[in-house]
């Protein structure tokens, strides 16, 4: 099993954000999570990256229960993520943002770094080359030396994804990657998400509101409503599902 949510329940003082959600994601492909606002989509990703801890259930990734893994070890497990509001290191350069994404893969100790030993420097050089490759694949290599917070919105979104991609994660989590992008930018986004899946053999789990994008690139889709999983299936199946249509259009009383 690649990724498995097993009866995950999460409550915030009274409010039940996730109600016994069980879900399996197979390796390879693009898996989309959709649902109305407040359905618990971001909460699912936040449980995966250990920002929230569910009260019940387990999340297994390659057989390991992630709920027993410290939040800062998630990346080392092979899970990278992007954020809805990007959470860039806004005062650092684009290159440094991505280098932080490569943090776990860079073995080092503060002493050799402080003295500037050759070994520490050669590892740095290699890491910078990797950063350059990722930036090129996203088409933003020319921004490498600029401060991330000063860049246009669309570029910042790519920097966020680039940071998640560092260290070649086996699972990439994208939280509303198309939010705030125009039509053209969204189309381009669809292309490079597909590219990521193909070229890097990375499984993508994404939350997205843009239905055109979701329907065109996803292999499987899960639908959440009020913290409950109401449907899982291929885009064609989801489009025809009664409960999904009801959740989106609202139920007539």
């Amino acid at each position, binding site marked *: 099993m690649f990724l498995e949510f097993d009866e995950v329940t999460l409550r915030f003082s009274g409010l039940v954000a996730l109600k016994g959600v069980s879900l399996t994601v197979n390796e390879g492909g693009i898996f989309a999570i959709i649902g109305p606002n407040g359905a618990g989509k971001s909460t699912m990703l*936040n449980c995966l990256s250990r*920002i929230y801890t569910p009260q019940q259930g387990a999340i297994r990734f390659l057989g390991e229960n992630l709920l027993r893994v410290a939040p800062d070890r998630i990346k080392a497990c092979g899970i990278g993520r992007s954020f809805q*509001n990007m959470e860039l290191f806004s005062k650092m350069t684009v290159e440094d943002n991505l280098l932080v994404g490569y943090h776990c893969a860079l073995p080092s100790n503060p002493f050799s770094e402080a003295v500037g030993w050759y070994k520490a420097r050669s590892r740095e050089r290699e890491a910078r080359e990797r950063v350059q490759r990722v930036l090129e694949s996203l088409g933003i290599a020319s921004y490498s030396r600029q401060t991330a917070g000063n860049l246009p919105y669309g570029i910042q979104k790519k920097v966020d994804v680039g940071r998640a991609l560092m260290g070649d994660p086996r699972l990439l989590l994208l939280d509303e990657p198309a939010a705030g992008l125009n039509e053209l930018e969204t189309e381009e986004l669809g292309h490079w998400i597909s590219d990521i899946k193909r070229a890097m053999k990375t499984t993508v789990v994404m939350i997205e509101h843009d239905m055109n994008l979701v329907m065109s690139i996803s292999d499987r889709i899960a639908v959440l409503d009020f913290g409950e999983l109401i449907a899982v299936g291929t885009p064609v199946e989801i489009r025809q599902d009664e409960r999904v249509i009801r959740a989106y259009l609202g139920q007539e009383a």
Partner: protein
Amino acid sequence: MLWQTILSGLAVGSLYALSAIGLVLIFKTSNIVNFAQGQMAMLSTFVAFQMLTRWGFPYWLAALASLVFALVFGFFVYIVFLSRLKRAEVLSQIILTLGLYLVFRGVAGVLWGNVPFTMPAAVSTNTVHIGSAVVTWYQLFIMIVTLLLMLVFYAMFRYTKTGLAMRAVSQNQQAARLMGVSLTRIYGATWAVSTALGAIAGLLIAPILFLSPSFMDSVAVKAFAAAVLGGFSSLPGAVLGGLVLGVMESVFGFYISTDLKSTFVFLLIIGILYVRPQGLFGTREVKKV
């Protein structure tokens, strides 16, 4: 004996609480920590002192003048200095208020010198017995004034239009502005009111401590600690923080050691914050990602 210590701790704690409310009020509305608050209180107290002892006005008139001065002074400081820095880094605002702290301290030194004066008290300092404890009328007076002020304040916050606007601004500045609330006016009013609160604390504490340009320093620091202890965004928290701090100081000073009073008090604060990083009454801000 324990009661005695606790009672005098509560009296000092009320003063911390008064200053702390001023700090929290400004922080809640404008997100600025006003480190000059103590010095502004000190200047206001000196205004009363000047009228009382040099010009011979009666106490109530001097106190009133001091409060009016504080209101105008607070508004003025906000409009002239802080309003220019709205979008700056939090640290820049802190340094700005620290700079003002130094300027005010220097000005008071130039005008009144650094020799401590005796400040007359509003009521007598004779003692009174409550059960087994002996307290002064003055300590009781301090606690009563503090309590009354808190009630007045609570009512104002709850039931007046300005109070409503202040609460709105502290929840969401943009929305409040769109609803027609003038931010500058509300911020100015907040600064005026909290400076006046500081001035009351100054007037109350000066007779105990002697009046000098540095007399509010220790109170200001403790008020800051009290506000933090309470959560820094909660008014009842600030009051409780002040009282807890006052009692802790008093008890530690009496039973353990006066020399290490601050050390113990701050150790305890660090301990409390370690268990509750958001303070006693603060709500933990959950960042949405």
